[in-house]
Structures are given as C-alpha cells and as structure tokens.
C-alpha cells in the first residue's frame, strides 16, 4: 500500500460518509491514483456480490401475528410493575395476570393509605416495600435470563451504555481487584421509575446494585434482615440511592458495600 488515502478515505467514499469537499477531492484523486481506483472497484464488487446474493432474511410467516398476540397480553403499565422479568408462561396466562394486577392494586392502595394516614409508619413501610421490590427484581433477573442488557467487565463500556436510556448517569465502578468484578448492567424498574442495575460477581454468585437519584431518609448504611436467603443493604450517597442484594454471605456483602462506598466516595459526597 503506497497511497495513504486508500485505506483512509476509499471506504468512506464508497459509503457516502465523506463531507462534500473531501468527496470532490477523492473524485479528482481517483482519476489519477490506480491504487485507490482499484480498491474502490473491489469494494463495489463486494457490495454488488452481497446485494446479488440477496442475503437479507425476511421475517417468517406467522412471526408478526405471534408478536402481536404477545403484545396483547402485555401492557407497558403492567409490564413496568413486573420489572424486567419477562416470563413467557405469564404472558400466556392472562387470568393470572389479572389476578396479579388485582393484587397489586390492593397493595398499592394499602401503601398509599399507610403513607397518608400513618406518618409514623412511613419509613419502615416504604423501606420494606422497596426491599420486597428489590428482592423480586433480583430473583427475576436471575431466573428470567435477563441479568444483563450490556455484558461487559469494563466500567467505561457499562457507564456510557446507560446514556440516553436513563435520565441520569449512574456512578459505575469495577471492583475486580477486590474479587467483585463488574460483569454488566441493565435497565430495571423500581417504584415505577427506571433505575440502573449494575451486576457484580462473587465467585458463582451475583450481586445486583440498583442505583437511582434521590436521597434516602438517612445517610447511614442500612442492613436489612435476610429475606428468603438473600442479604440486602442500602445507602445513599452523592444524591443517589443504592440498594445491593445478593445471596452472598452477609459478611461478603458488607465488605462489597464498604469497597463500593470507598470507591465512589472520592467523586461524590
């Protein structure tokens, strides 16, 4: 390769990605540079072959109908309550869904009532309700094969992935050097809003960390009673709320939270 322009600009020229002045420059250049002209001809031949091969698939018969009927038994509002756990069984059983919706309505009503009339209960009630939601999301993320939307051990991949998907930018830290490697992230729903879920691994166990803006009642780190074999901790820092949940031991989780707090602390107060 002797012409410096070949690799730099021929593909962009082929793909119509050069700006106007560069395009004109290339057109003039192509008339005199055999190397660039030959490369362009080959790339055009490759494109021609791919188009001739008609390699694009069209959706098979019935897929559209399948999707439409699965949408019919789903609904965004309902789906949001069930967080990210998509489960085919539940979609095919609308009756069960109705029952869930009913149960949820009752729960929501209770929560609202408690919130308005029992200020003394406000803290624990909302905390426990949230704890239940966090736990459900954690379990679903493991069951429903939805642990990660973006699988990466690189915080610089995971953090930008959330851009445009959330109205905030969550702090993302890898703790691989402390044997809690970051393995990915996904979008999730808690309390009816989108939250970031960061997934860490401890040996064979996963830790979900849910992050969203907002201050919790207190700044101290709360350790919850284990529920169904899962440990949970939550804290707030730098205007974010954090909930960590996992089936690792309470000691491991506490260590993990301590490390995460230390790591996130320098940037945030």
């Amino acid at each position, binding site marked *: *390769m002797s012409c410096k322009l070949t*690799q730099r600009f021929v*593909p*962009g020229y082929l*793909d119509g*990605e050069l700006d106007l002045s560069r395009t004109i420059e290339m057109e003039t250049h192509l008339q005199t540079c055999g190397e660039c002209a*030959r490369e362009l*001809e*080959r*790339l055009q*031949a*490759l*494109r*021609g*072959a*791919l*188009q*001739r*091969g*008609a*390699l*694009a*698939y*069209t*959706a*098979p018969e019935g*897929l*559209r109908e*399948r*999707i*439409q009927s*699965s*949408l*019919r038994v*789903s*609904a*965004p*509002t*309902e*789906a*949001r309550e069930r967080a990210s756990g*998509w489960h085919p069984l539940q*979609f095919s059983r609308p009756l069960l869904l109705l029952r869930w919706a009913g149960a949820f309505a009752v729960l929501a009503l209770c929560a609202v009532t408690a919130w308005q009339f029992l200020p003394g209960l406000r803290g624990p009630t909302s905390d426990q309700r949230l704890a239940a939601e966090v736990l459900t999301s954690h379990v679903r993320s493991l069951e429903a*094969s*939805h*642990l*990660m*939307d*973006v*699988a990466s051990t690189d915080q610089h*991949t995971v953090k*930008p*992935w959330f851009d*445009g*998907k959330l109205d905030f930018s969550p702090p993302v830290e890898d703790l691989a050097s402390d044997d809690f490697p970051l393995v990915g992230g996904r*979008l999730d729903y808690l309390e009816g809003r*989108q939250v970031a879920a960061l997934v860490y691994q401890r040996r064979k166990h996963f830790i979900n960390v849910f992050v969203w803006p907002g201050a919790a009642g207190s700044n101290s780190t709360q350790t919850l009673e284990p529920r169904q074999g899962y440990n949970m901790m939550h804290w707030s820092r730098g205007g974010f709320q954090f909930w960590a949940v996992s089936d690792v031991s309470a000691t491991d989780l506490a260590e993990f939270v301590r490390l995460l707090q230390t790591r996130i602390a320098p940037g945030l107060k």
Partner: protein
Amino acid sequence: MQDTATRERFEQAVLPHLDAAYNFARWLTRNEHDAQDVTQEAFLRAFRFFDGYKGGNMRAWLLTIVRNTCYTWLHQNRPPDSAVEFDEEIHSSESSGGADPELQVLASADKETLHRALDELPGIFREVLVLREMEGMSYKEIADVASVSIGTVMSRLARARMRLRESLGAALGKES
C-alpha cells in the same frame, strides 16, 4: 382504553421494522428458531421501553434492543464467539498487483458461498456488515446500535470487508 391506544401506536411505529429486526437477529444468532424467539422478546422489551423512546431513528432504536437481546441470549446459551478479537488494528492486506483476480472472484461468487463467508465472520464484523450492506445504515447509526464509536465502526467495517474478501478468495480459489 389507553393500553389499546399505546399498543396500536407501538405497532404502527415499530412493526414496519420487523423484517430488519428479524434479519439482524437471524445473522447474529445464525439460527432460524432462535432468531424468531429473540425477535419476539426484543419486541416485548421495546414495548416495555416504548415510554423511554424519545423520538428519532426508530429502526436504530429497535435494532439496538434486538442486539442487546441477542447478546444476552447468546451469552447465556452459547460459549463465547471464540473468533472474536477486540483489537481494532486494521491489518493490511497483501495486494499482489497486476491483473485483478479478486474482481473475478467477487463477480463469480454464488449465493451459498457468500452466505457461508458472512456467516463465518466473527460477530462484531458480521453485525457491522449486516447493518451497513443490508440495512444501509450510516456509520453514526451503526455506532449507536453497536454502542461503539464511529472510529470503531470504520475500523471494524474495514476489517470485516477485508476478511470477507479473503475468505471468498480462499473459497473460490480452491474450486477453480
């Protein structure tokens, strides 16, 4: 019913891109049955996140979800793509000069050979080629779908094309 209205709005906006979604899923999973499942699940996820869709390029938005669904699925169901390399260096080709046998190869490549060559490319190369050559997407759109920079799109595309040319050359060179 508000739900019905939302669903109809979703179907009108998103279902026209079903073929693009399926084609992308089909090339990423390399299997008809899996592609159907992944496409269906991607549509359900798109529906769930429809509130979060802020306008803009619908097809790119949908294909981003298809891609995420595919890779989550592949991650859980198959061993990692062993041939995927993440170094982005463009490796230069050995151009031999003289008459151009490559053009003859490309002109004579049949559908089966092309299909196999593309199918055997590592995923990161396959996806940029599918988005560029079949969906006609711009570098910017591809960068959005694949969550990488435009520079990365350009270098992957260059390597993908180079590899495809090499493997077509090898496949057809053997026959003649």
